[in-house]
């Protein structure tokens, strides 16, 4: 997958991604206001395949899954951060949104075009060909993501069990 980087700072909380006051408006409305508090033009400028890069503790706050759902709805292909809040990390993975830890994000500039190879855990900057290493995903999460998230993964599993 390849796309542009949208760069954010530390401690981006779930309320920034799925603002409480739009929770009743459904996913469409939530996504339209996703991250507007930190970057007003985010929802209107992201395209399918773009990648969110952030600092520490991305996804801190409430356990609302709509935070990850809003990013998926906007077509974000992956989130790469120095660290994630645990419940967000789980929710995103379960919904099929790859979330990857990158120890050093200093080479990742806003707007840069990148290619992500999930299996290899590698991010390549298109312009320079420089490769930025990502922490490898555990095998079970690779399978979960390849299946498209927990629900499709379980569907497959139940179908297999039935056919046995």
């Amino acid at each position, binding site marked *: 997958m390849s796309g542009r980087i949208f760069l954010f700072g530390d401690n981006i909380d779930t*309320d920034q991604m799925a603002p409480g006051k739009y929770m009743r408006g459904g996913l469409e409305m939530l996504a339209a206001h996703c991250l507007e508090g930190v970057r007003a033009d985010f929802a209107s400028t992201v395209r399918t395949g773009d990648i969110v890069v952030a600092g520490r503790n991305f996804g801190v706050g409430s356990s*609302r899954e709509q935070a990850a759902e809003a990013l998926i709805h906007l077509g974000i292909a992956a989130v790469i951060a120095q660290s994630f809040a645990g419940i967000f990390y789980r929710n995103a993975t379960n919904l099929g949104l790859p979330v990857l830890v990158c120890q050093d994000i200093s080479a990742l500039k806003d707007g840069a075009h990148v290619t992500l190879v999930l299996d290899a855990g590698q991010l390549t900057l298109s312009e320079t060909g420089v490769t930025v290493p990502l922490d490898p995903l555990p095998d079970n999460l690779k399978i979960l993501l390849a299946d498209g998230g927990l629900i499709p993964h*379980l569907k497959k599993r139940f179908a297999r069990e039935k056919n046995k």
Partner: protein
Amino acid sequence: MNTTLAQKIIARAAKRDHVTPGEVVTAQVDLAMIHDSGGPRRVEPILQELGVGLFDADKVVLISDHFVPGDTEEGAQILELTRQWAKKRQVAFHDGEGICHVVLPERGHLKPGMLVVGGDSHSTTGGAFGTYMFGIGATEMAGVLATGEIWLTVPKTILIEWRNQLSDGVTAKDMMLAICGKLGMDGGRYQAVEYCGDAIAALSMQERMTLSNMAAELGGQAGLIAPDEVTASYISNAGGDAGEWQMLKTDSGAPLMAHHAMDAAELAPQAAAPHSPANAAAVGDVEKTSIDVAYIGACTGAKYEDLKNAASILQSRSVKSGVELLVAPASKRDQQRAEKDGIMAVFEAAGAQILPNACGICAGYGTHRLGENITCISSTARNFKGRMGAASSNVWLASPFTVVASAIAGEIADPRTFLSSKERLA
């Protein structure tokens, strides 16, 4: 091999002799708790989509608390759906009996050594009973309800040791605010936080629950306390069975991620400024701040002992005019006990409003949501912007002692001034 309490619980649940921090394992869930907000209305459509039922109805507990008392159309509908689901799926259901994290152990559902998931971020509260309990989202909960399994990364342990004893008027809530201030909201790194030391051993179960509850604010996956006689007697009084708890502890010499030693005797009452629990400071160092609302509520700060502490200061005093004191006891049982002991009468005499045994304002629901520019001091766990009402409202976090002292003074106040004057009177 020397291992941590977290490793011991997870190894058993994963049917393994030994697990190593950092490895990903699949564990069997001993109990799953859900509430009306993230529960039936979110998980049932997924179960339908998967075409399966519950892995084991006897291992699921449903508790209504977020939309209780159902005084809006939306809330009433959600409660109705919740009740229908409880019947259809034949699970244990506590309806309108209080906040899930308090009701679950109160009814004897928790036992040391269990691996438990809850559909709520403060599910860490169960760690006070030596269970490995953590919060998950609705999709993941649906997966657990369908399979009885969950994946987890075996955590490292961050040991927080409290030496010596707390002084009068200082509580578990102050300990947690101080730790949040020291380590920050990602200090727990989604690992296992474990509390130990003389000051912890001396705490009651309800105080320990406050510590484990706020492991969520530290960003820990779980907030554990090794079981002891205090745990075992609470559980047997609640009609549960503590089982073989004696071996459930972190061995000395087990590898730790960090070990923080704190002195309970030196701890002063804390208050956390808007809009983060990490903005904690000693109450005495807080600039003069007048308040409009004082709130005793939530799983964190309105259990029986919280009510008792607050009432001990409020007795024969009155709330400053212009300040509204709101009290929402965390469970029906705790409220009944407080009624019997004359504690509720103290609140009523002081003109406090008594609200339902539910999440209420803490979840941003109910008729008492904070209005524009209101300054509130609250016994809850979180003071994120806009959580309890208008985005312009300002919420300070403190212990029930400090909340009530501030209600009396009309501004953020150190509860110890009231304690000592009371002693002088006596």
